[in-house]
């Protein structure tokens, strides 16, 4: 059994291999990838243990912390964390719970951490798995129930998270990732890059069999890769409403264009890989959502609209020779016109934005220039669309905003023939 590990070149520590040999098999597995998360991971470990105890007391469960070489004692925190079962109204653990902490090997990144988790899931022949981020502050034991039960009891293979988010949160997801995934693969998965997922043991083995572990998937882009791989390969998909997602503040200096590059590049890689599949898909269908959905009032947040418009204009001024090399005139002209518009009337139509995104996907497919340069040049145009969206939805309620987002998604679906038509055209 363990010889296959070498074949798959997933290196597991000796003590982990011994523990797995002792365990032989398990029913459930929850993985937590980490890197220097000693401050936040305790809460996550507690929530996972409580969730497994409360909702799956009779199942043999394993918690895996797959660490990227933390220097702040993250692994020790995981080892030392214990859960007070009285506070969660659980008398004592009836089932079996085992905690394992292991460093992962390979390219540094969340993808490599997941690979180790998938490998352990495969070796233990688990029925259902979940992965949750180590910097979550809002995770509750119920998340574990919602991510695992649809797999264990309803026969689903993949559970995508559905969080309660502010209308202006996740603008890359809202304006690119969700609508493109939906239009291309035909499933309305609202948060395809959520980060916390549930999946079957069968799907974990399938992920492991894919030859992507030396690519960018190992570094970044694992989230969209997991969702798209599940959808494109016909696995049974659902969503779980988890409530609010609050996590430790990200690096404030994080560069937007680098972030956009990582996410969009992963999305375009998958578009390339699954071209024969998505060309055949027409329209989209909702996926079943588990959990008790609710919404809360929206407090106004600060958005620097002037700054974003300024960056859009600067991009149009300075990068126009680059844009002219691959964007057609029917995209360039309205973009140029938009640079003249004041904030009050600043509006980028859905059709225009959709064509921009599809043309970028085509430019990447036809390799017209360095991929990183190309995708990073999308940043000013993306800021233009975000500005337009924020202005338009400033007074909207969460429901009204979702309706508006639905219109954008429909624009992506309606313009899909443009992408299909140009995909096989020679430059």
């Amino acid at each position, binding site marked *: 059994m363990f010889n296959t590990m070498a074949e798959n070149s997933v290196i597991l520590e000796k003590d982990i291999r011994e523990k797995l040999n002792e365990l032989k098999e398990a029913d459930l597995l929850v993985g937590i990838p980490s890197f220097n998360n000693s401050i936040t991971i305790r809460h996550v470990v507690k929530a996972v243990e409580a969730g497994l105890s409360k909702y799956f007391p009779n199942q043999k469960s394993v918690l895996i912390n797959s660490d990227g070489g933390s220097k702040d004692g993250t692994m020790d925190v995981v080892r030392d964390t214990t859960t007070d079962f009285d506070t969660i109204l659980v008398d004592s653990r009836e089932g079996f719970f085992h905690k394992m902490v292991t460093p992962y090997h390979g390219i540094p990144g969340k993808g490599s951490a997941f690979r180790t988790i998938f490998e352990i899931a495969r070796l233990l022949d688990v029925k259902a798995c979940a992965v949750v981020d180590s910097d979550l502050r809002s995770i509750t034991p119920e998340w574990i129930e919602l991510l695992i039960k649809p797999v264990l009891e309803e026969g689903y293979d993949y559970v995508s998270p559905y969080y309660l988010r502010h209308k202006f949160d996740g603008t890359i997801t809202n304006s690119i990732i969700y609508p493109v995934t939906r239009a291309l693969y035909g499933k309305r998965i609202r948060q395809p890059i959520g980060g916390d997922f549930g999946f079957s043991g069968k799907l974990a083995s399938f992920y492991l069999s894919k030859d992507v572990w030396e690519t960018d998937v190992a570094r970044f882009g694992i989230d969209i890769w997991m969702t798209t791989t599940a959808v494109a390969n016909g696995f049974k998909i659902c969503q779980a409403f988890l409530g609010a997602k609050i996590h430790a503040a*990200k690096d404030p200096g994080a560069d937007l264009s680098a972030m956009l590059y990582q996410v969009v590049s992963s999305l375009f890689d998958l578009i390339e890989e699954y071209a024969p599949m998505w060309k055949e898909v027409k329209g989209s269908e909702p996926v079943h959502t588990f959990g008790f959905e609710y919404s809360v009032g929206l407090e106004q947040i600060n958005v620097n609209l002037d700054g974003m418009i300024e960056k859009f204009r600067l991009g149009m001024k300075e990068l126009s020779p680059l844009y002219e090399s691959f964007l057609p005139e029917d995209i360039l002209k309205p973009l140029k016109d938009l640079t003249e518009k004041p904030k009050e009337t600043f509006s980028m139509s859905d059709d225009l934005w959709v064509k921009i995104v599809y043309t970028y996907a085509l430019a990447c497919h036809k390799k017209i*220039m360095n991929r990183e340069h190309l995708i990073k040049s999308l940043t000013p145009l993306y800021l233009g669309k975000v500005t337009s969206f924020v202005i338009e939805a400033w007074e909207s309620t969460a429901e009204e905003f979702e309706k508006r987002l639905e219109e954008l998604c429909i624009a992506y679906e309606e313009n899909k023939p443009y992408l299909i038509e140009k995909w096989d055209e020679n430059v």
Partner: protein
Amino acid sequence: MNTIFDSVVTEPLKDFFQKFLKFMPNLLSSVIIFILGFVAAWILKIVISKVLGVLNFDRFCEKFGMTEELARAGIKDTPTNLLSRILYWLVVIVFTIIALSTLKVPAIENLIEAFFLYLPNLFIAALIIIVGYMLSNFLGRATLIASVNAGIEFSSLLSRGVKTIIFLFAVAMALEQLGIGRETVVVAFTILFGGFVFALALAFGLAGKDIAKEYLEKKFKAKETEKRDELKHL
């Protein structure tokens, strides 16, 4: 009388004729090599065109902005055609030199020896220029996109500066490789580069102090506003 005629006319003529006869095979092989050179160059041109076509060389050049630069320089040819033509003439020149060396004329032989000793320098210099040019384009564009995304107003200027400095650096390296004014080139480059930085510092610090002040103020204020931006992109 006969002896005088022999020594003045017949002997030199005989001597010349013998030398000419001795030279004839060299001349003949030289002409053959020269003609062969054209044939080999023609075959190579076709092979190179096909290989570069398969390798999508034109697309590669387009990607690095070389096609655009060639067009700007008034060269309408595709990079594949251009390179195969350059190689064609390079082969013709090499064969011409070989043809000349087969003549076994000491003066020409000396010249050829010197040329062949110098040839590797020419190749390395050409390679430095090509790589430098491509790198300057690549980093120039990377600078442009990064500075636009950072909201820097004079992004084009910055990008052109990066591009020019890298290309000038490549030219200086190539000239040094060729041994053309070795010290002059290094000194000139150092003065030029140092002067450029100094001029920039002066222009920014003295002549453009108001612009600098305004820019820094704007940047500082922009940072403050950005801090208040609560939009989450992911």
